[in-house]
Every structure is written in C-alpha cells, then in structure tokens.
C-alpha cells in the first residue's frame, strides 16, 4: 500500500490559492500585461456613464444618459452625426474611436459619493470602462474624480459647479467642461449691478456642502466688488425640505436681495418658500426685494414653475442659443427624444465627444496621451463658442450665460430666457487664484 502525499488540508490550501488567483479583479491581472488600465484589445472600447438613475436627481441623470447614448450613436456613425458636423476638430470620423466600436455601461451614482465611487469602480474593474463620464453633484464628481485618478482612467465630469472640482481637488486624470461658481459670480455680478443697482444688501442661504460653500464665496466676492453688501450667510442642511425657518429671518434682516445658493430640490423648495412669504412683493430700503438663483438648470426651473419668473441666474449652456453647434445638437436630441436637452445633457454629450476626439488626436487610449491631447486644446462647434481646455487645472473656459425666468413662457421648455452671453475673457481667472488654491493637479496615472 503506497502512502499518498495528498492531504485534505493541502487540497484545501491549493484550492484556496487557485480560487483567489482566478477571482482577482482583472484590473490587477491585466495591468501586468497592458500598458494602461483597461487597454482595449478587441474591436470595441467601453465607456462608463455614471449618472444618478435613482434619487432626487434621477430626471437630470436620465437626461445626461440620453445625451451620452446619442454621443455614442454619433461616434459610431449612426443617426445624423449631430455635433460631429460642427465640431472644429475633424479627427472624429464616425467609425467609433480609433476604429473601435464604442460601447457603454452605466452606473447609478444615486447622488451619493460612496454609491458613485462603487458604481464607477465596478464599471472600471468588471466592465473594463476606460473613461467615466457624468454626474449631477460636485460632491460626487470630486469623489469619482479621485477614484479615477487612483484607477488610472480618465474622468470627464458631468454637471459639477464647485470651484473645488478644478481647484483644491483637481486631479490630472479629471477634466471639467462645465463652468464653476467663480464664473457664475463673474458673469452675474455686472448684470445684477445693471439691473438692481450698486447699493444692495444681500442675504445668502447656502447649501451646506462643497458646492454651496464655493458658490456663496464666489457670488459674495463678485457682488461685493460691484458695491453690494453681504448681510448674512446662513448654511442650510442639504436634507432640508422646508426653508420657512430660514426665510423668516430674511424679512427683518434689512436685506433687499436673497441669494439662494441651492440646487435641485433645495432650490425648488427654498424659492417656493421665499415666494410664499411674499419676498418679491416687499419693498426694503426703498427698493423692490429681489431673489437671485446663481445656478439654474432647465429641469429645476420646470420644477419651480411660475416662481422663477424674472429671477436671475446663470447657466453653462441653453438650448435656445443660435450657434450651429447648439442647433445641430438640439435637432439631433429633439428629434430623437421629443424634447430639448438640458445643460447637464449638453455637457455630458460634449465631454464624450471631447474624450473621443482626444483619443483620435493622441492616437491612443492611454490616459496620459489623452490628457496631453486635452490639455490646452482649443475648439468650437459644440455649442459653447470658442473654448479652451486649460492645461493648468483641466477647466474649460468659454462664454457663460446669464439667464432669467421667462415672464411669458410659450411652452414647457422656454421657462428660461437668455439675458446675456458673458464673454469668456470676463470669467477667466489665474490658475493660482485664491478661490482655487490648495490643490495639486499631480501627474497623470495610466494605472499600469
């Protein structure tokens, strides 16, 4: 009888090691062979669209997703090609990216940083996504941007308006097409001065998180520069639903302007509450009381209904612009989905095309090559006029729109009217501006 060396314990140990090896995420195993994370090897390339599909911004996320799907169609040569016809860079041919068919996976951010990171991680590790795009919150954008930097993929931010995204939290692998709080202030303040005068006293209600803080700081600085006084700034919890307790003190504060640094449901509710309390009917300091909502979105404007009439704000883009890029995108989106796109949809569409274009121009999907192609890139034809992707902080610089709630909307979509297209030069700032200080872009991480 021969004695076998195979023991039960040995089999279990070997099995465990073998199982662990098989179960290792592809991100680790692939990196040893590939030049960079998720290097496409077949005939297709996968993009990851990380948008809020549930939660309070689900409608906005859905609009982003529609635009991203449209961008994929156009990149693959389907549909009417949209902005591929108007984009000044002619690197995109409608045959995918670098000849590979574009496919996509989606994740649900739920407008929660942890959920957004988890969904982005899953798309990168399990689905092989080489770029992440989308989102409707600065908190989420900053969290996902950090993850993409660590994972070695490009992050093309969606709607994120906090100065911090390309300020103290900027990352070499992250790029923002959307404008920011500083730009809102720089564009809005001169218009507010012209409309409401120099001697105004502003009371700020501010959402208590990164976006609210930086927007409030930007708007206060810009309005104080034109002579306004900031009477008070009250931080409101993000979870607030009824703002009556915060609105009531405004009545006796001596302020004659209320600035609502709120977005989404917060904005709809705080504006509704402010109107309920009759603020717009009041006369304070011998002046008509005014309300300002620095960041507007079409979907939120629809939610606020008639309350936004005459209320000033700013936007990254609006479907009513008349340039060729906007017309092409609105036609393409409108004919496919039966409604005009929102500005969050436009930024996601533009970002997807910009990423694809950068890959083509760089001749690679390597994040470092793509980043290099995007840095300092100047372009036009995507709806925002001549635009620069600044190398120093990966922030796009372009015209900013000052809008106000339409007095007499003719349909469900023209709730906002464009008051002014503020030229890019007026909203530019130095890379080391104090409001954007404290961060380090670092170096590109290809992940391999």
């Amino acid at each position: 009888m021969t004695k076998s060396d195979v023991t039960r314990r040995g089999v279990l140990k070997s099995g465990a090691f073998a199982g662990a090896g098989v179960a290792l995420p592809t991100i680790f195993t692939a990196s040893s062979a590939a030049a960079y994370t998720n290097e496409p090897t077949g005939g297709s390339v996968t993009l990851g669209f990380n948008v809020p599909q549930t939660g309070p911004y689900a409608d906005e996320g859905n609009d982003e997703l529609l635009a991203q799907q449209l961008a994929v169609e156009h990149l693959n040569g389907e549909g009417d090609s949209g902005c591929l016809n108007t984009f000044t860079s002619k690197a995109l041919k409608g045959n995918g990216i670098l000849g590979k068919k574009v496919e996509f996976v989606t994740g649900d951010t739920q407008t929660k940083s942890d959920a957004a990171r988890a969904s982005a991680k899953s798309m990168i590790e399990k689905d092989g996504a080489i770029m992440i795009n989308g989102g409707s919150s600065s908190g989420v954008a900053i969290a996902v941007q950090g993850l993409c930097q660590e994972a070695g993929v490009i992050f093309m931010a969606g709607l994120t308006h906090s100065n911090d995204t390309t300020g103290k939290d900027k990352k070499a692998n992250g790029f923002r097409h959307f404008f920011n709080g500083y730009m809102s202030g720089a564009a809005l303040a001169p218009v507010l001065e012209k409309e409401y005068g120099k001697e105004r006293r502003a009371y700020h209600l501010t959402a208590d998180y990164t976006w609210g803080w930086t927007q409030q700081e930007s708007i206060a600085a810009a309005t104080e520069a034109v002579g306004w006084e900031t009477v008070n700034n009250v931080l409101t919890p993000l979870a607030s639903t009824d703002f009556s307790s915060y609105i009531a003190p405004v009545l006796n504060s001596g302020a004659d302007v209320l600035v609502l640094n709120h977005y989404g449901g917060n904005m709809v509710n705080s504006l509704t509450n402010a109107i309920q309390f009759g603020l717009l009917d009041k006369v304070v300091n011998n002046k008509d009381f005014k309300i300002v909502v620095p960041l507007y979105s079409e979907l939120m404007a629809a939610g606020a209904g008639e309350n936004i009439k005459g209320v000033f704000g700013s936007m990254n883009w609006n479907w009513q612009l008349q340039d060729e890029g906007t017309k092409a995108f609105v036609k393409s989106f409108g004919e496919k989905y039966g409604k005009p796109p929102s500005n969050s949809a436009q930024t996601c569409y533009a970002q997807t095309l910009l990423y694809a274009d950068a890959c083509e121009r760089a001749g690679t999907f390597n994040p470092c090559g793509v980043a290099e192609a995007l840095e300092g890139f100047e372009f036009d034809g995507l709806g925002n006029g001549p635009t620069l992707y600044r190398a120093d902080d990966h922030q796009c610089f372009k015209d900013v729109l000052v809008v106000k709630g339409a007095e007499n909307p003719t349909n469900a979509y023209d709730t906002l009217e464009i008051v002014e297209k503020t030229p890019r030069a007026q909203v530019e700032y130095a890379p080391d501006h104090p409001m954007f200080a404290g961060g380090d872009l670092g170096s590109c991480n290809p992940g391999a």
Partner: protein
Amino acid sequence: MDAFLIQILNGLDKGSAYALIALGLTLIFGTLGVVNFAHGALFMVGAFCAVTLQRVLTLSFETVDETQKDFLGNPLKVKTPYVESWFGPEAGAWIIDWAVPLAVLIAIPIMLLVGYVMERGLIKHFYKRPHADQILVTFGLAIVIQEIVKYFFGANPIQTPPPDALNGVANLGAALGMEIVYPVWRIVYFCFSVLIIGGIFAFLQFTTFGMVVRAGMADRETVGLLGINIDRKFTIMFGIAAAVAGLAGVMYGPINPPNYHMGMDFLVLSFVVVVVGGMGSLPGAVLAGFLLGILESFASTTWATTTIPGINQIIIYLVAIIVLLTRPRGLMGRKGVMEE
C-alpha cells in the same frame, strides 16, 4: 418680537404635518399594534392625488398654431384643457386653479381604499409577527410605493400651487400694529390640520364606533368577547389613518412641491414625534408634533445656529433623548404599551 412670532407660526405649521402623520401612526399602532413604516408613503400618495387631479384637469387637446414655432422650428402645438372648452375659459381656469382643495374630496375615498387594501392585503399577515418583521415589510412597502410613484411621475418636484385666492401673504399682526406677514396657504394648512385633528378626536370620543375602538385599544380581547368584530373596526381605523396621512399630503403640496421622496423625509421625524409623545397616545402625538415643530423652527434661526452650530439638525433627537431619559414612556405615554 415679529421674528419670534413668525418662528412660532413656522413651528405650528411644521408641527401640523408632524402631528397629522404621527396621529395616523399612533392610530395604527394603538389599534393594530403595527409599526407602520409605510405611513410616510401614504402622506406622499396623498400629495400625488393632488398632482394627479391637477394633471387630469389640465388634460388638453392640441391645435396647431402656424404663427408660433416649437423648439425644433415646427408649427407650435397649442394645448387647451378640456375643462376650459367644456365649461368656458373662466370656469375651466377656476376649476384648475382650485385643483388642490378639490383633490381633498377625491383623496378621501382613494386613501381609505389604499389603507383598506394595504391592511387586508399585507399588514394583517404580520399582526402576530415581531415588530422587526413589521418594520421590514412596511419599510419595503414604502420603497415599492415610492418607486411606483417615481416611475409614473418622475423624480423632479412637481408644482401644485394653491388657488390664487389663497396665495400670497396675510398680515396677522395688523390689529396689534405689528407686521407679522405669513403665507395664507400655511395658515390654511394649520387650520385644516386643527380641523382634522379635532375631527378625529371627536369621532373617537363622541361616536359609538369611536367608543368601541377606544375600548378595543384598551383591551382588545374583552371587546372581542362581547361579540364585537373589533378586527373589522380596526381595519376601518387603518383606512382612516391612511386618509389622515393622505389629506396631510394633499394640502402640503402647495407648501413644498411634491416629489416621490417626500414621505421618507417626514417618516423618521414622525416616528420620533410618536416616541416623544408616548407610544399609543393620540394627544401625546399631537402635542409632541407641535412642540417639536416649534423647537425645530427656533433651532433653525441664525441666532441658534451661530450659538450652537448644527443645532438645527439635531434638536429633535436631542429633545427625544432628554424626554426619554426623564419620561421613558414619552410625554403622555401609557403604562403597558410596548412594554413586556
């Protein structure tokens, strides 16, 4: 002084919603012994009754207006509500304008039915199960309801404005020479809440049905031994509790535009209200609702938030801790309820 009074009014207004939801929760807990985490969803369903009626009343037919263009440059399709074509532009516009108060009328039967179906279809199977099971199943039900609402109505808030006649502000301090301006609809909401709360108490106090229900709440077995079908009466009470939550939701729409998540926003706070008031105590629920509403309102003032940062977010829980430490059964809790 003016600001102080306005915060009191704000507190009463917030407290109205808390009290109505907490009253329904207590009715269900007191009668059926069920911890109903779907109660916030019923509040939301009520609000969406108003949204639905508003949409029904604004159902329109389209006519093409060649003189105007849509966003794609095609001739604009102008929508005219059927009610305006049936009853004339003025009467039709008046009906649409009063959609929210009219929704109260349709919400009552709808919410009674929803409550009845909920209780007979699901909740009754959990009467003898542990409270943890009840919480899990009702919480799951709440999520299902809110996802259904989101599917049909989307995630964005939907404006349900008050009638023009009840919009705007009223100066409550005019008689005293003070300026205490307050939104008219919020005053309406408070009065409506007081009316509903008074109605529920009167119903329980002065009707035979109410007397049997109260007796059943005190000693279910003995009432059953007297040959009274107490289960049926409790089912009806579940429907009434659902209707109270629903009506609170209908009337809340003009204060904050309804969204699918609004029930969850109120649910946790309303449970705290029930616990602070005393489990199973109807007057306790109402008292705690108004008390916590007022405290929350004052905690949100600039003075409070600058003196103790973050107090606005913790005040309700802080009060709950203090009350439960000093009065473990809550402000008006009864001995034997939720106790072994």
